[in-house]
């Protein structure tokens, strides 16, 4: 569905008069710390694995920011990750599984909630579930009104917060980069990702922040809830109704999940601007966005409003 507004142009790149349609999700931020930044990063990568899309992963999760020792609860270097699911129950289930298999297992790590409990009163059980790994030798500490579990492991202790705050988030912010060829699309996508990655409150859950397999709802196969977005597949031009022009031969999509509309809007603006500045006149033809006619999600990010 397109807006009635006219297309903008930034650095020779057409910004299509359409909108990205995003939907409500449940979200949390976790802070992983370790004796050094490398272990923290390894744990973050492990917990973020197979966390690209709720369609089959049930969780969208990615590294948000790298934190200095001064920014973490236990004064060690760390990383924050943001996780999003379609329901609080699913978020609970996925987070405990992943924390147990990916953070508890990683040498020297500790795990804390990263949202302000005063602002986000709803909770996910974390150490409350993981403590049983201690087989009765786990120790609870209540410091400053927050409960922590100390679970004995082979390198010492795994420290984990009893419960972590959760909040409402937004998933499915997106924009598509339509280019002359794959090299140009890839270059534009990397520029956009580089601009978004430093931002707080937003993550890009797909590999390198980018997906090539944008999807539409439904399929000719009844068992599939989503299938390839044929309108943007260059190889299907002429076979199915296409949104691509004759010179558009590659499309890559950036998908964003965030803790607020403002965070996603800001990130989309930064990403699109960076892509246009980097690749306008160098193979990037247009930027568009994916939506479902406004029927799927209540958060609509109109490109013309974002970029004007």
């Amino acid at each position: 569905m397109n807006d009635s507004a006219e297309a903008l142009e930034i650095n020779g790149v057409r910004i299509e008069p359409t909108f990205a349609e995003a939907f409500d999700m449940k979200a949390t931020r976790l802070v992983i710390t370790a004796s050094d930044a490398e272990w923290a990063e390894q744990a973050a990568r492990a917990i973020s694995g197979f966390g690209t899309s709720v369609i089959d992963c049930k969780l969208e999760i990615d590294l948000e920011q790298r934190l200095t020792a001064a920014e973490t609860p236990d004064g060690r270097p760390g990383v924050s990750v943001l996780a999003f699911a379609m329901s609080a129950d699913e978020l609970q289930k996925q987070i405990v599984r992943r924390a147990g298999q990916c953070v508890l297992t990683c040498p020297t790590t500790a795990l804390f909630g990263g949202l302000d409990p005063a602002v986000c009163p709803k909770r996910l059980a974390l150490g409350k579930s993981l403590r049983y790994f201690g087989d009765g030798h786990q120790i609870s500490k209540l410091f400053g009104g927050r409960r922590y579990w100390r679970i004995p492991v082979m390198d010492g202790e795994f420290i984990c917060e009893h419960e972590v705050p959760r909040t409402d988030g937004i998933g499915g912010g997106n924009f598509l980069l339509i280019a002359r060829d794959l090299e140009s699309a890839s270059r534009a996508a990397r520029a956009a990702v580089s601009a978004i990655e430093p931002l707080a409150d937003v993550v890009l859950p797909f590999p390198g922040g980018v997906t090539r397999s944008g999807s539409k709802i439904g399929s000719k196969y009844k068992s599939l809830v989503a299938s390839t977005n044929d309108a943007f597949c260059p190889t299907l031009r002429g076979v199915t109704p296409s949104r691509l022009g004759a010179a558009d031969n590659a499309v890559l999509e950036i998908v964003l999940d965030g803790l607020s509309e403002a965070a996603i809007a800001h990130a989309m603006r930064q990403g699109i601007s960076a892509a246009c500045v980097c690749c306008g006149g160098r193979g990037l033809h247009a930027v568009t966005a994916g939506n479902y006619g406004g029927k799927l999600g209540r958060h609509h990010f109109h490109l013309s409003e974002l970029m004007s």
Partner: protein
Amino acid sequence: MTRWEFRLRRAGPAHIDASSIHRSQLAARDLAQIQRLSLIVDGVPTELGDCFDVRVSPSDSEQIVFEGPLSHVHGLATRHDRGEFLIEGDVGDYLASAATGGVVQLSGSAGDWVGAPLGASRLGINGATVSVRGSVGRYAGHRMRRGCLLVDGDASELLAALMIAGTIAVGGSVGRQPAMGMRRGTILLADADSMVTESGGEASQRFTEPVPFRAGFLQLLNDADFDRVLRKIAGGDELPKAIWRVRCDRSVGGQGELLYPASE
């Protein structure tokens, strides 16, 4: 919120049982009613106003403040549950008995049974943070269940006896038989080396072998009093880096932990 200030009119020798002074009782009364509250002085019921000058004033936080030579005043901060209980000088026995929340700060030293159970109860401190700048007597932290007991100075005999959980830190020396019958919880001491490594004696039955330990959880207690006592335990400006840990009291199957800095 309210600040209640109590200044002792005359120093001892009479022993005053102040365990009936509780925040909830004060909050429900005006100044005249507070002055008529009954205290036991040498076994005789006496009006509070006969022992203490009382002042009530508005405050940003709930505060109960005691001043004066209080070493004959016992049971201060009993069942304290919220806000600050601030005491200037030394106090008698049973400070912060069965306290369940809030903060108790004592600028001087306390007598025996700091944080002990009240009456026939089986639970001592059960949630409060009790900070003593001086020393404490015997049986400090007896049957402690939750919270923190921080002592800048020394602790006498039987520290943390029958401790169930919580955290106790002592910056000075410790008397005989700490952690007797301790089930769970954490004790941090400045020097326990000779105590726990005594071979062939009672210590070998009560304490496990010391193991080097990385006490990362100490960083989570973001509290100035705790930080100060920890630095004292470390004997310097830095927090202790190398720490020994023993489990205790093994003679009763306890899984408490005793932490102390590793000697050079």
